[in-house]
């Protein structure tokens, strides 16, 4: 039973974990249990203390015919009688899980909420996986055979032509994020790629090529939330959710007034900044949803890190590099090299920010007290932005 708490009490994160991302032998339940158990162990919290258990997952029913996973996970973790709930917001299911977990603690409904996200995808062929993900589209879009990578190609061409940006600038996003991923032992790809390799890789959705896209990935990640007063019972060092917000944009992508502005990024960013009292200049490190390289530009601009049409210049200048940049972006390797198990990705972004703020990021460590994660669903259809800070 949740105890009475002050509505103003801040929401703490006291544990974080992620499994190895990549091609995994385990199925969805194996992956979720692995991350969930590791997260509880990381925090030193027993499963019996978990009051709410949320599972971020887009499509376990479609991918492997497994539904009802939150209850199944509660049983596997021996977390009964915890209240369970599935959070599906397509690719932003993980971020939406963070928002739901924050709400459960902030409202006083739960004193300990475990959030686990995961997806098992690699057993399906690339066309099948592409189709499951593309099922987010409106019927008039779906019948054209459009895919999420196609939306990226359409948007990238428009961006490059309109802002006179060089094709190479997108390639440099991939090069940077692959370089960061080398130091992430849980990343699917721990391999550098050079610009020439990116620019000569096979075309997937012209002008974008293979290395502009994240891979198909199995994996899971978890975060543990509680009120700050409860966190202090377990540890002196934890992270606080300073701001979080979610927003939507049009379902039909071509109906957006400006194809280079993701309204969900802009609006969720505004909400997270307002709640936290911080602005773009206060952010020390950011995880952006680089499912496609062009998305890193659109989020940098939508979140106020760059003016519209200018993000490519910052990437060219090295502004977002991990070791020398003013704002390191995707120190984890991003979805690009870490991989994108749909329901896990937003949580894995949170795991990276948590580790950066806790000083636990090892060779990826940057100097950071405030971090931001932006998790994008569909092609910007729904977006969650979360700002975290070290506990003061």
């Amino acid at each position: 039973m949740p105890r009475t708490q002050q509505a103003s009490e801040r929401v703490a994160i006291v544990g974080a974990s992620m499994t190895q991302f990549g091609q995994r032998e385990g199925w969805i339940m194996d992956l979720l249990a692995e991350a969930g158990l590791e997260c509880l162990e990381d925090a030193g919290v027993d499963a019996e203390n978990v009051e709410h258990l949320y599972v971020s997952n887009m499509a376990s029913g479609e991918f492997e015919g497994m539904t009802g996973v939150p209850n199944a996970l509660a049983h596997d973790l021996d977390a009964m009688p915890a209240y369970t709930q599935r959070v599906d917001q397509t690719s932003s299911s993980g971020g939406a899980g963070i928002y739901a977990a924050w709400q459960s603690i902030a409202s006083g409904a739960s004193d300990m909420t475990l959030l686990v996200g995961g997806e098992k995808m690699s057993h399906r062929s690339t066309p099948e996986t592409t189709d499951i993900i593309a099922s987010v589209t409106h019927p008039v879009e779906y019948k054209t055979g459009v895919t999420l990578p196609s939306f990226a190609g359409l948007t990238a061409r428009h961006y490059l032509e309109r802002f006179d940006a060089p094709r190479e600038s997108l390639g440099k996003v991939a090069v940077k994020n692959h370089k960061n991923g080398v130091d992430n032992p849980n990343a699917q790809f721990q391999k550098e790629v050079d610009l020439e390799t990116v620019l000569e890789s096979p075309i997937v959705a012209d002008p974008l090529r293979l290395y502009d896209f994240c891979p198909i990935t199995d994996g899971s990640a978890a975060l543990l939330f509680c009120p700050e007063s409860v966190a202090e019972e377990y540890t002196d060092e934890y992270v606080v959710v300073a701001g979080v917000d979610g927003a939507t944009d049009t379902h039909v992508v071509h109906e957006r007034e400006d194809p280079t502005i993701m309204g969900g990024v802009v609006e969720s960013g505004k909400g997270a900044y307002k709640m936290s009292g911080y602005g773009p200049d206060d952010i020390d490190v950011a995880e952006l949803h680089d499912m496609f390289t062009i998305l890193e530009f659109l989020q940098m601009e939508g979140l106020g890190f760059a003016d519209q049409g200018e993000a490519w210049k910052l990437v060219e200048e090295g502004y977002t590099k991990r070791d020398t940049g003013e704002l390191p972006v995707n120190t984890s390797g991003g979805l690009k090299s870490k991989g994108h198990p749909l329901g896990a990705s937003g949580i894995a972004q949170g795991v990276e920010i948590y580790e950066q703020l806790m000083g636990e990021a090892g060779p990826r460590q940057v100097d950071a007290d405030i971090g931001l994660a932006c998790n994008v669903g569909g092609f910007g259809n729904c977006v969650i932005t979360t700002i975290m800070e070290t506990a003061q």
Partner: protein
Amino acid sequence: MTMEATRYEDGSISYPGHPRGPGGTEPVETIDLSEYTAEVVTWTTSTATPPGVREPNTLAIVEFDVDGESVRAIGQVTTDDVETGDDVEPVYVEELREPGAGIREPDSQDWNGYQFEPV
């Protein structure tokens, strides 16, 4: 078969239509976009297509001008030889992709429609 767009109380037009338009405005009429030409805003050629979709699949977002009101649409292009700014006209096709080959329930939507052909 028409390429049906919807005009709302405020004069704006969307393709496809929705029960409510901008500012909560109600639909007032439908417009057949197949009677108009459009301009290519952007395009891509997809080489990794889902089951039942032609490969490669060249797609474009195009903009129609309906009596001074612009409305955009996405569609397949009849050729791979297309550029931004090209004028195109809608051309009817019985089946844009194979119903039932993908995950979507075949009876849940239409599969015929219009491709865009440069003029």
